[in-house]
Protein backbone atom coordinates (compact mmCIF):
# COMPACT_ATOMS: atom_id res chain seq x y z
CA UNK A 1 0.00 0.00 0.00
CA UNK A 2 1.45 3.40 -0.81
CA UNK A 3 1.79 6.11 1.77
CA UNK A 4 -1.01 8.29 0.39
CA UNK A 5 -3.64 5.64 1.04
CA UNK A 6 -2.07 4.72 4.29
CA UNK A 7 -2.47 8.27 5.61
CA UNK A 8 -6.12 8.53 4.65
CA UNK A 9 -7.00 5.35 6.44
CA UNK A 10 -4.96 6.10 9.50
CA UNK A 11 -6.58 9.43 10.24
CA UNK A 12 -9.97 7.76 10.54
CA UNK A 13 -8.94 4.96 12.88
CA UNK A 14 -10.25 4.99 16.39
CA UNK A 15 -6.94 5.40 18.18
CA UNK A 16 -6.44 8.76 16.52
CA UNK A 17 -9.77 10.25 17.58
CA UNK A 18 -10.15 12.11 20.86
CA UNK A 19 -12.49 9.50 22.31
CA UNK A 20 -10.12 6.71 21.35
CA UNK A 21 -7.27 8.56 23.00
CA UNK A 22 -9.27 9.19 26.17
CA UNK A 23 -10.23 5.50 26.40
CA UNK A 24 -6.57 4.70 27.02
CA UNK A 25 -6.18 7.12 29.93
CA UNK A 26 -6.37 5.13 33.21
CA UNK A 27 -8.77 7.59 34.88
CA UNK A 28 -11.39 6.87 32.22
CA UNK A 29 -10.99 3.10 32.31
CA UNK A 30 -14.48 2.61 33.66
CA UNK A 31 -16.22 4.60 30.93
CA UNK A 32 -18.25 2.96 28.21
CA UNK A 33 -18.02 3.92 24.59
CA UNK A 34 -21.10 6.14 24.73
CA UNK A 35 -19.79 7.96 27.79
CA UNK A 36 -16.55 8.73 25.97
CA UNK A 37 -18.33 10.80 23.34
CA UNK A 38 -19.92 12.76 26.16
CA UNK A 39 -16.52 13.14 27.80
CA UNK A 40 -15.28 14.64 24.54
CA UNK A 41 -17.65 17.57 25.04
CA UNK A 42 -16.44 17.99 28.61
CA UNK A 43 -12.74 18.14 27.79
CA UNK A 44 -11.00 21.39 26.89
CA UNK A 45 -8.35 21.04 24.18
CA UNK A 46 -5.57 23.59 24.68
CA UNK A 47 -2.49 24.13 22.57
CA UNK A 48 0.73 25.27 24.21
CA UNK A 49 3.92 26.53 22.64
CA UNK A 50 7.35 25.39 23.82
CA UNK A 51 8.45 26.59 27.31
CA UNK A 52 4.96 27.79 28.19
CA UNK A 53 3.82 27.62 31.82
CA UNK A 54 0.80 25.39 32.36
CA UNK A 55 0.51 26.30 36.03
CA UNK A 56 2.76 27.56 38.79
CA UNK A 57 3.19 26.27 42.30
CA UNK A 58 0.48 27.74 44.65
CA UNK A 59 -1.80 28.64 41.73
CA UNK A 60 -5.43 27.81 42.44
CA UNK A 61 -5.84 24.30 41.10
CA UNK A 62 -9.11 23.12 39.68
CA UNK A 63 -8.48 20.14 37.46
CA UNK A 64 -6.24 17.71 35.66
CA UNK A 65 -4.39 17.83 32.37
CA UNK A 66 -3.76 14.94 30.02
CA UNK A 67 -0.91 15.16 27.54
CA UNK A 68 -1.96 14.27 24.02
CA UNK A 69 1.19 15.26 22.20
CA UNK A 70 4.45 16.81 23.38
CA UNK A 71 6.16 16.78 26.77
CA UNK A 72 5.65 18.58 30.08
CA UNK A 73 8.22 19.01 32.82
CA UNK A 74 7.03 18.97 36.44
CA UNK A 75 9.22 20.83 38.91
CA UNK A 76 9.24 22.62 42.24
CA UNK A 77 11.06 25.74 43.33
CA UNK A 78 12.97 25.91 46.58
CA UNK A 79 13.35 29.00 48.74
CA UNK A 80 16.13 30.31 46.47
CA UNK A 81 13.90 30.08 43.38
CA UNK A 82 16.03 27.18 42.13
CA UNK A 83 14.09 24.68 40.08
CA UNK A 84 14.18 21.03 40.97
CA UNK A 85 12.93 18.80 38.21
CA UNK A 86 10.65 16.01 39.42
CA UNK A 87 9.47 14.35 36.23
CA UNK A 88 9.11 14.70 32.49
CA UNK A 89 5.75 13.49 31.27
CA UNK A 90 4.91 12.42 27.74
CA UNK A 91 1.86 11.58 25.62
CA UNK A 92 -0.81 9.66 27.56
CA UNK A 93 0.47 10.88 30.95
CA UNK A 94 -1.61 13.14 33.12
CA UNK A 95 -0.98 15.50 36.03
CA UNK A 96 -2.87 17.72 38.49
CA UNK A 97 -5.48 15.04 39.12
CA UNK A 98 -5.46 15.55 42.90
CA UNK A 99 -7.20 18.92 42.55
CA UNK A 100 -9.98 17.45 40.43
CA UNK A 101 -12.04 16.40 43.42
CA UNK A 102 -11.11 19.02 46.00
CA UNK A 103 -9.86 22.55 45.44
CA UNK A 104 -6.29 23.09 46.55
CA UNK A 105 -3.32 25.21 45.52
CA UNK A 106 -0.94 23.51 43.09
CA UNK A 107 1.96 21.87 44.89
CA UNK A 108 4.21 21.79 41.81
CA UNK A 109 4.77 23.80 38.67
CA UNK A 110 4.32 22.50 35.13
CA UNK A 111 5.88 23.78 31.93
CA UNK A 112 5.93 22.47 28.39
CA UNK A 113 9.23 21.58 26.74
CA UNK A 114 7.93 21.69 23.17
CA UNK A 115 4.72 22.46 21.31
CA UNK A 116 2.18 20.49 23.33
CA UNK A 117 -1.47 19.64 23.12
CA UNK A 118 -3.10 19.26 26.53
CA UNK A 119 -6.58 18.06 27.37
CA UNK A 120 -8.01 19.75 30.46
CA UNK A 121 -10.72 18.25 32.63
CA UNK A 122 -11.89 20.59 35.37
CA UNK A 123 -13.82 20.26 38.57
CA UNK A 124 -16.63 22.60 37.54
CA UNK A 125 -17.39 20.50 34.46
CA UNK A 126 -17.36 17.38 36.58
CA UNK A 127 -19.77 19.01 39.07
CA UNK A 128 -22.12 19.97 36.25
CA UNK A 129 -21.95 16.38 34.98
CA UNK A 130 -22.74 15.05 38.42
CA UNK A 131 -26.12 16.77 38.37
CA UNK A 132 -26.97 15.96 34.75
CA UNK A 133 -25.42 12.54 34.18
CA UNK A 134 -24.66 11.11 37.60
CA UNK A 135 -23.76 7.73 36.12
CA UNK A 136 -20.98 9.12 33.93
CA UNK A 137 -19.69 11.35 36.71
CA UNK A 138 -19.60 8.44 39.14
CA UNK A 139 -17.64 6.31 36.66
CA UNK A 140 -15.08 9.08 36.17
CA UNK A 141 -14.84 9.65 39.92
CA UNK A 142 -14.52 5.92 40.52
CA UNK A 143 -11.61 5.67 38.10
CA UNK A 144 -10.02 8.69 39.76
CA UNK A 145 -10.49 7.28 43.26
CA UNK A 146 -9.05 3.94 42.21
CA UNK A 147 -5.96 5.59 40.84
CA UNK A 148 -5.46 7.95 43.75
CA UNK A 149 -5.89 5.16 46.31
CA UNK A 150 -3.39 2.99 44.45
CA UNK A 151 -0.98 5.85 44.58
CA UNK A 152 -1.72 6.41 48.27
CA UNK A 153 -0.99 2.77 48.99
CA UNK A 154 2.37 2.89 47.27
CA UNK A 155 3.13 6.12 49.10
CA UNK A 156 2.19 4.51 52.42
CA UNK A 157 4.40 1.54 51.74
CA UNK A 158 7.24 3.82 50.76
CA UNK A 159 6.85 5.90 53.91
CA UNK A 160 6.82 2.73 55.99
CA UNK A 161 10.00 1.56 54.30
CA UNK A 162 11.67 4.90 54.91
CA UNK A 163 10.60 4.89 58.56
CA UNK A 164 12.07 1.42 58.98
CA UNK A 165 15.32 2.59 57.42
CA UNK A 166 15.36 5.61 59.71
CA UNK A 167 14.87 3.54 62.86
CA UNK A 168 17.56 1.09 61.69
CA UNK A 169 19.97 4.00 61.21
CA UNK A 170 19.19 5.38 64.64
CA UNK A 171 19.96 2.06 66.34
Amino acid at each position, binding site marked *: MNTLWNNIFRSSTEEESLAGFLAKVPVFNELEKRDLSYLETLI*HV*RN*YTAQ*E*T*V*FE*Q*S*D*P*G*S*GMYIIRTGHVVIF*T*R*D*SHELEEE*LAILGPGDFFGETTLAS*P*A*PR*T*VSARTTEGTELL*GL*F*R*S*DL*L*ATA*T*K*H*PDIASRILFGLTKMISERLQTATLEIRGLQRKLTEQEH
Partner: protein
Amino acid sequence: MNLNKAHFLLFYLTMTAAIASGLAIFSSASNITILFRSAVSGLFVPLLLALVTSFLLDPLVSSLEKRRIPRVRAIFIMFFIVTALLVFTGSWLIPYGQNMWNSLLTDFPRYNTQLIAYLREAQVSWQARLPFLEHYDLTGTVRTAAEQTLSFVLVETPKSALKLGSLMILLPIFTFFFLRDGTTIMRGIVALAPNRYFEMAHDLSFLVNRQMAHFIRGRIIEAIIIGSVVTAGLSVTDIRYAPLLGIFAGITNLIPYIGPLMGMIPGILIAAVDLGIGAQFWWIVILYILIAQVILDNFILIPVLISRVANLHPLLVILAIVMGGKLYGVIGMIIGVPIVSAFKIAFIEVRHYRRAFSLPDTSGDRRS
Protein backbone atom coordinates in the same frame (compact mmCIF):
# COMPACT_ATOMS: atom_id res chain seq x y z
CA MET B 1 16.60 68.16 -6.83
CA ASN B 2 14.35 66.02 -8.92
CA LEU B 3 14.51 63.27 -6.37
CA ASN B 4 13.61 65.69 -3.63
CA LYS B 5 10.54 66.85 -5.48
CA ALA B 6 9.48 63.28 -6.06
CA HIS B 7 9.94 62.56 -2.38
CA PHE B 8 7.93 65.60 -1.45
CA LEU B 9 5.16 64.58 -3.80
CA LEU B 10 5.17 61.08 -2.43
CA PHE B 11 5.04 62.38 1.13
CA TYR B 12 2.19 64.72 0.22
CA LEU B 13 0.22 61.95 -1.43
CA THR B 14 0.76 59.57 1.46
CA MET B 15 -0.32 62.15 3.99
CA THR B 16 -3.43 63.00 1.99
CA ALA B 17 -4.32 59.37 1.66
CA ALA B 18 -3.73 58.81 5.38
CA ILE B 19 -5.88 61.77 6.38
CA ALA B 20 -8.62 60.85 3.93
CA SER B 21 -8.73 57.25 5.08
CA GLY B 22 -8.61 58.39 8.71
CA LEU B 23 -11.60 60.63 8.13
CA ALA B 24 -13.40 57.88 6.26
CA ILE B 25 -12.76 55.40 9.05
CA PHE B 26 -13.85 57.91 11.68
CA SER B 27 -17.10 58.82 9.95
CA SER B 28 -17.91 55.25 9.10
CA ALA B 29 -17.10 54.23 12.65
CA SER B 30 -19.55 56.74 14.09
CA ASN B 31 -22.04 55.71 11.42
CA ILE B 32 -21.50 52.11 12.38
CA THR B 33 -22.07 52.78 16.06
CA ILE B 34 -25.28 54.62 15.20
CA LEU B 35 -26.38 51.79 12.94
CA PHE B 36 -25.41 49.28 15.59
CA ARG B 37 -27.33 51.13 18.26
CA SER B 38 -30.51 51.39 16.22
CA ALA B 39 -30.14 47.75 15.19
CA VAL B 40 -29.94 46.41 18.74
CA SER B 41 -32.28 48.94 20.39
CA GLY B 42 -35.28 46.62 20.66
CA LEU B 43 -33.26 43.54 21.47
CA PHE B 44 -32.00 44.31 24.93
CA VAL B 45 -35.21 43.50 26.77
CA PRO B 46 -36.05 40.26 24.90
CA LEU B 47 -32.46 39.04 25.31
CA LEU B 48 -32.49 39.77 29.01
CA LEU B 49 -35.89 38.17 29.51
CA ALA B 50 -34.78 35.14 27.50
CA LEU B 51 -31.72 34.87 29.73
CA VAL B 52 -33.90 35.01 32.84
CA THR B 53 -36.34 32.47 31.40
CA SER B 54 -33.54 30.10 30.47
CA PHE B 55 -32.10 30.39 33.97
CA LEU B 56 -35.56 29.52 35.31
CA LEU B 57 -36.15 26.58 32.97
CA ASP B 58 -32.65 25.17 33.08
CA PRO B 59 -33.09 23.07 36.26
CA LEU B 60 -36.31 21.60 34.85
CA VAL B 61 -34.64 20.73 31.55
CA SER B 62 -31.69 19.24 33.40
CA SER B 63 -33.96 17.10 35.53
CA LEU B 64 -35.57 15.74 32.36
CA GLU B 65 -32.11 15.19 30.93
CA LYS B 66 -31.23 13.18 34.00
CA ARG B 67 -33.96 10.73 32.98
CA ARG B 68 -31.94 10.06 29.81
CA ILE B 69 -34.03 12.30 27.56
CA PRO B 70 -31.83 14.13 25.02
CA ARG B 71 -31.48 17.82 25.81
CA VAL B 72 -33.20 19.18 22.71
CA ARG B 73 -36.18 16.92 23.26
CA ALA B 74 -36.23 17.90 26.94
CA ILE B 75 -36.34 21.59 25.94
CA PHE B 76 -39.22 20.94 23.55
CA ILE B 77 -41.14 19.03 26.21
CA MET B 78 -40.55 21.91 28.64
CA PHE B 79 -41.72 24.44 26.04
CA PHE B 80 -44.80 22.38 25.37
CA ILE B 81 -45.68 22.21 29.06
CA VAL B 82 -45.09 25.93 29.59
CA THR B 83 -47.13 26.85 26.49
CA ALA B 84 -49.97 24.58 27.59
CA LEU B 85 -49.94 26.16 31.05
CA LEU B 86 -49.90 29.67 29.58
CA VAL B 87 -52.74 28.95 27.16
CA PHE B 88 -54.77 27.30 29.89
CA THR B 89 -54.36 30.08 32.45
CA GLY B 90 -54.55 32.72 29.71
CA SER B 91 -57.90 31.56 28.33
CA TRP B 92 -59.22 31.60 31.86
CA LEU B 93 -57.61 34.83 33.03
CA ILE B 94 -57.56 37.15 30.03
CA PRO B 95 -61.31 38.01 29.80
CA TYR B 96 -61.39 38.40 33.57
CA GLY B 97 -58.25 40.53 33.53
CA GLN B 98 -59.51 42.59 30.60
CA ASN B 99 -62.70 43.49 32.46
CA MET B 100 -60.74 44.31 35.54
CA TRP B 101 -58.26 46.45 33.66
CA ASN B 102 -61.03 48.42 31.92
CA SER B 103 -62.92 49.07 35.11
CA LEU B 104 -59.68 50.04 36.83
CA LEU B 105 -59.06 52.61 34.11
CA THR B 106 -62.52 54.11 34.64
CA ASP B 107 -62.09 53.97 38.40
CA PHE B 108 -58.65 55.51 38.29
CA PRO B 109 -59.84 59.17 38.26
CA ARG B 110 -61.98 58.47 41.31
CA TYR B 111 -59.04 57.08 43.28
CA ASN B 112 -56.95 59.94 42.03
CA THR B 113 -59.39 62.61 43.25
CA GLN B 114 -59.56 60.90 46.61
CA LEU B 115 -55.76 60.78 46.87
CA ILE B 116 -55.63 64.47 46.05
CA ALA B 117 -58.27 65.22 48.64
CA TYR B 118 -56.18 63.41 51.27
CA LEU B 119 -53.11 65.27 50.18
CA ARG B 120 -54.88 68.62 50.26
CA GLU B 121 -55.99 67.98 53.82
CA ALA B 122 -52.45 67.08 54.77
CA GLN B 123 -51.11 70.12 52.94
CA VAL B 124 -53.45 72.49 54.76
CA SER B 125 -52.48 71.03 58.10
CA TRP B 126 -48.75 71.24 57.54
CA GLN B 127 -48.91 74.65 55.93
CA ALA B 128 -50.61 75.88 59.06
CA ARG B 129 -47.65 74.61 61.06
CA LEU B 130 -44.84 75.39 58.63
CA PRO B 131 -45.86 78.65 56.93
CA PHE B 132 -42.70 78.91 54.83
CA LEU B 133 -43.92 75.94 52.76
CA GLU B 134 -46.93 77.90 51.61
CA HIS B 135 -45.84 78.20 48.03
CA TYR B 136 -44.97 74.56 47.61
CA ASP B 137 -47.96 72.95 45.88
CA LEU B 138 -47.64 69.23 46.54
CA THR B 139 -51.25 68.58 45.58
CA GLY B 140 -50.81 70.13 42.16
CA THR B 141 -47.60 68.21 41.53
CA VAL B 142 -49.19 64.90 42.41
CA ARG B 143 -52.26 65.69 40.33
CA THR B 144 -50.29 66.44 37.17
CA ALA B 145 -48.09 63.39 37.77
CA ALA B 146 -51.13 61.13 38.18
CA GLU B 147 -52.79 62.56 35.06
CA GLN B 148 -49.60 62.04 33.11
CA THR B 149 -49.39 58.46 34.33
CA LEU B 150 -52.96 57.74 33.26
CA SER B 151 -52.51 59.21 29.78
CA PHE B 152 -49.17 57.38 29.49
CA VAL B 153 -50.87 54.08 30.37
CA LEU B 154 -53.71 54.72 27.93
CA VAL B 155 -51.33 55.56 25.09
CA GLU B 156 -48.75 52.91 25.85
CA THR B 157 -51.07 49.93 26.32
CA PRO B 158 -51.68 49.30 22.60
CA LYS B 159 -48.01 50.03 21.86
CA SER B 160 -46.81 47.60 24.48
CA ALA B 161 -49.27 45.05 23.12
CA LEU B 162 -47.42 45.36 19.81
CA LYS B 163 -44.10 45.00 21.60
CA LEU B 164 -45.53 42.01 23.42
CA GLY B 165 -46.30 40.41 20.06
CA SER B 166 -42.68 40.63 18.89
CA LEU B 167 -41.57 39.52 22.33
CA MET B 168 -43.76 36.43 22.09
CA ILE B 169 -41.88 35.43 18.94
CA LEU B 170 -38.38 36.42 20.00
CA LEU B 171 -38.50 35.20 23.58
CA PRO B 172 -39.07 31.47 22.87
CA ILE B 173 -36.46 31.46 20.10
CA PHE B 174 -33.80 33.14 22.24
CA THR B 175 -34.68 30.99 25.23
CA PHE B 176 -34.45 27.84 23.16
CA PHE B 177 -30.94 28.64 21.97
CA PHE B 178 -29.78 29.82 25.39
CA LEU B 179 -31.01 26.56 26.88
CA ARG B 180 -29.56 24.40 24.15
CA ASP B 181 -26.23 26.13 23.56
CA GLY B 182 -25.70 28.14 26.74
CA THR B 183 -22.83 26.01 27.97
CA THR B 184 -21.25 25.83 24.52
CA ILE B 185 -21.42 29.62 24.18
CA MET B 186 -19.84 30.10 27.61
CA ARG B 187 -17.13 27.56 26.79
CA GLY B 188 -16.42 29.35 23.55
CA ILE B 189 -16.03 32.67 25.35
CA VAL B 190 -13.87 31.20 28.11
CA ALA B 191 -11.72 29.35 25.56
CA LEU B 192 -10.54 32.75 24.28
CA ALA B 193 -8.60 33.27 27.52
CA PRO B 194 -4.83 32.81 27.24
CA ASN B 195 -3.49 29.45 28.47
CA ARG B 196 -2.04 30.89 31.64
CA TYR B 197 -5.41 32.28 32.80
CA PHE B 198 -7.69 29.74 31.19
CA GLU B 199 -8.11 27.56 34.25
CA MET B 200 -9.02 30.48 36.48
CA ALA B 201 -11.37 31.99 33.89
CA HIS B 202 -13.11 28.67 33.47
CA ASP B 203 -13.50 28.16 37.20
CA LEU B 204 -14.76 31.70 37.78
CA SER B 205 -17.25 31.57 34.94
CA PHE B 206 -18.72 28.45 36.48
CA LEU B 207 -18.95 29.94 39.97
CA VAL B 208 -20.39 33.25 38.80
CA ASN B 209 -22.87 31.48 36.56
CA ARG B 210 -24.03 29.26 39.41
CA GLN B 211 -24.47 32.17 41.81
CA MET B 212 -26.29 34.17 39.15
CA ALA B 213 -28.70 31.36 38.34
CA HIS B 214 -29.36 30.90 42.04
CA PHE B 215 -30.00 34.60 42.52
CA ILE B 216 -32.31 35.04 39.52
CA ARG B 217 -34.29 31.91 40.32
CA GLY B 218 -34.60 33.02 43.94
CA ARG B 219 -35.78 36.50 43.01
CA ILE B 220 -38.44 35.27 40.57
CA ILE B 221 -39.76 32.62 42.95
CA GLU B 222 -39.83 35.21 45.74
CA ALA B 223 -41.85 37.59 43.57
CA ILE B 224 -44.31 34.84 42.62
CA ILE B 225 -44.82 33.80 46.25
CA ILE B 226 -45.27 37.38 47.48
CA GLY B 227 -47.68 38.08 44.64
CA SER B 228 -49.82 35.06 45.38
CA VAL B 229 -49.82 35.66 49.13
CA VAL B 230 -50.92 39.27 48.64
CA THR B 231 -53.58 38.16 46.15
CA ALA B 232 -54.87 35.52 48.55
CA GLY B 233 -54.83 37.91 51.49
CA LEU B 234 -56.68 40.59 49.54
CA SER B 235 -59.26 38.14 48.19
CA VAL B 236 -60.42 37.58 51.75
CA THR B 237 -61.53 41.20 51.95
CA ASP B 238 -64.09 43.03 49.79
CA ILE B 239 -61.41 44.94 47.92
CA ARG B 240 -61.64 44.98 44.15
CA TYR B 241 -58.75 44.20 41.80
CA ALA B 242 -57.11 41.80 44.24
CA PRO B 243 -55.27 39.82 41.49
CA LEU B 244 -53.99 42.98 39.77
CA LEU B 245 -52.76 44.40 43.08
CA GLY B 246 -51.11 41.07 43.89
CA ILE B 247 -49.32 40.98 40.53
CA PHE B 248 -48.22 44.59 41.02
CA ALA B 249 -46.90 43.83 44.51
CA GLY B 250 -45.03 40.78 43.16
CA ILE B 251 -43.37 42.69 40.32
CA THR B 252 -42.38 45.68 42.44
CA ASN B 253 -41.00 43.29 45.02
CA LEU B 254 -38.14 42.65 42.56
CA ILE B 255 -36.78 46.07 43.53
CA PRO B 256 -35.33 45.95 47.05
CA TYR B 257 -36.21 48.54 49.72
CA ILE B 258 -38.27 50.84 47.48
CA GLY B 259 -40.25 48.23 45.53
CA PRO B 260 -42.38 46.91 48.41
CA LEU B 261 -43.35 50.48 49.35
CA MET B 262 -44.36 51.22 45.77
CA GLY B 263 -46.24 47.95 45.65
CA MET B 264 -48.40 48.69 48.66
CA ILE B 265 -49.42 52.28 47.78
CA PRO B 266 -52.19 51.43 45.26
CA GLY B 267 -53.58 48.65 47.43
CA ILE B 268 -53.77 50.81 50.53
CA LEU B 269 -55.16 53.74 48.55
CA ILE B 270 -57.91 51.64 46.96
CA ALA B 271 -58.71 50.13 50.34
CA ALA B 272 -58.97 53.58 51.93
CA VAL B 273 -61.20 54.90 49.15
CA ASP B 274 -63.49 51.92 48.64
CA LEU B 275 -63.66 50.33 52.06
CA GLY B 276 -63.07 53.33 54.33
CA ILE B 277 -60.76 53.22 57.33
CA GLY B 278 -62.04 50.20 59.22
CA ALA B 279 -61.18 46.65 60.14
CA GLN B 280 -60.64 45.59 56.53
CA PHE B 281 -58.37 48.56 55.83
CA TRP B 282 -56.16 47.69 58.79
CA TRP B 283 -56.11 44.04 57.75
CA ILE B 284 -54.85 45.09 54.32
CA VAL B 285 -52.17 47.30 55.86
CA ILE B 286 -51.08 44.45 58.12
CA LEU B 287 -51.13 42.06 55.18
CA TYR B 288 -48.86 44.27 53.09
CA ILE B 289 -46.41 45.28 55.76
CA LEU B 290 -46.35 42.62 58.42
CA ILE B 291 -47.34 39.41 56.67
CA ALA B 292 -45.95 39.90 53.15
CA GLN B 293 -42.89 41.97 53.90
CA VAL B 294 -41.69 41.36 57.43
CA ILE B 295 -42.66 37.78 58.12
CA LEU B 296 -42.73 36.16 54.70
CA ASP B 297 -40.07 38.10 52.82
CA ASN B 298 -37.56 39.02 55.50
CA PHE B 299 -37.80 36.02 57.78
CA ILE B 300 -38.60 33.19 55.37
CA LEU B 301 -38.02 33.88 51.70
CA ILE B 302 -34.87 35.98 51.60
CA PRO B 303 -32.86 33.73 53.96
CA VAL B 304 -34.01 30.59 52.13
CA LEU B 305 -33.91 31.71 48.52
CA ILE B 306 -31.36 34.47 48.25
CA SER B 307 -27.87 34.38 49.59
CA ARG B 308 -26.73 37.29 51.68
CA VAL B 309 -24.06 37.81 49.05
CA ALA B 310 -26.42 39.63 46.74
CA ASN B 311 -27.55 42.21 49.30
CA LEU B 312 -26.96 45.65 47.92
CA HIS B 313 -26.32 48.83 49.82
CA PRO B 314 -29.47 51.02 49.74
CA LEU B 315 -27.49 53.78 48.07
CA LEU B 316 -26.53 51.43 45.24
CA VAL B 317 -30.16 50.39 44.88
CA ILE B 318 -31.29 53.99 44.49
CA LEU B 319 -28.51 54.72 42.00
CA ALA B 320 -29.39 51.61 40.01
CA ILE B 321 -33.07 52.53 39.90
CA VAL B 322 -32.43 56.11 38.84
CA MET B 323 -29.88 55.14 36.18
CA GLY B 324 -31.99 52.24 34.93
CA GLY B 325 -35.00 54.55 34.68
CA LYS B 326 -32.97 57.10 32.69
CA LEU B 327 -31.81 54.43 30.25
CA TYR B 328 -34.82 52.18 29.76
CA GLY B 329 -37.81 53.74 31.55
CA VAL B 330 -39.96 51.61 33.81
CA ILE B 331 -38.40 48.34 32.64
CA GLY B 332 -35.00 49.83 33.33
CA MET B 333 -36.04 50.62 36.89
CA ILE B 334 -37.02 46.99 37.45
CA ILE B 335 -34.00 45.37 35.80
CA GLY B 336 -31.44 47.93 36.95
CA VAL B 337 -31.15 46.45 40.42
CA PRO B 338 -30.74 42.82 39.32
CA ILE B 339 -28.05 43.88 36.86
CA VAL B 340 -26.12 45.69 39.58
CA SER B 341 -26.58 42.62 41.79
CA ALA B 342 -25.16 40.49 38.99
CA PHE B 343 -22.05 42.66 38.88
CA LYS B 344 -21.76 42.46 42.64
CA ILE B 345 -22.07 38.69 42.58
CA ALA B 346 -19.34 38.44 39.95
CA PHE B 347 -17.12 40.76 41.96
CA ILE B 348 -17.66 38.89 45.22
CA GLU B 349 -17.06 35.51 43.60
CA VAL B 350 -13.74 36.73 42.24
CA ARG B 351 -12.71 38.02 45.66
CA HIS B 352 -13.88 34.87 47.38
CA TYR B 353 -11.99 32.75 44.87
CA ARG B 354 -8.79 34.64 45.46
CA ARG B 355 -9.16 34.38 49.22
CA ALA B 356 -9.93 30.66 49.12
CA PHE B 357 -6.62 29.98 47.45
CA SER B 358 -4.36 32.32 49.37
CA LEU B 359 -3.54 29.47 51.72
CA PRO B 360 -0.31 29.21 53.69
CA ASP B 361 2.79 29.01 51.54
CA THR B 362 3.28 25.50 50.20
CA SER B 363 6.77 25.98 48.79
CA GLY B 364 8.17 23.72 51.48
CA ASP B 365 6.08 20.76 50.34
CA ARG B 366 7.38 18.36 47.79
CA ARG B 367 5.59 15.83 45.70
CA SER B 368 7.36 12.85 44.19
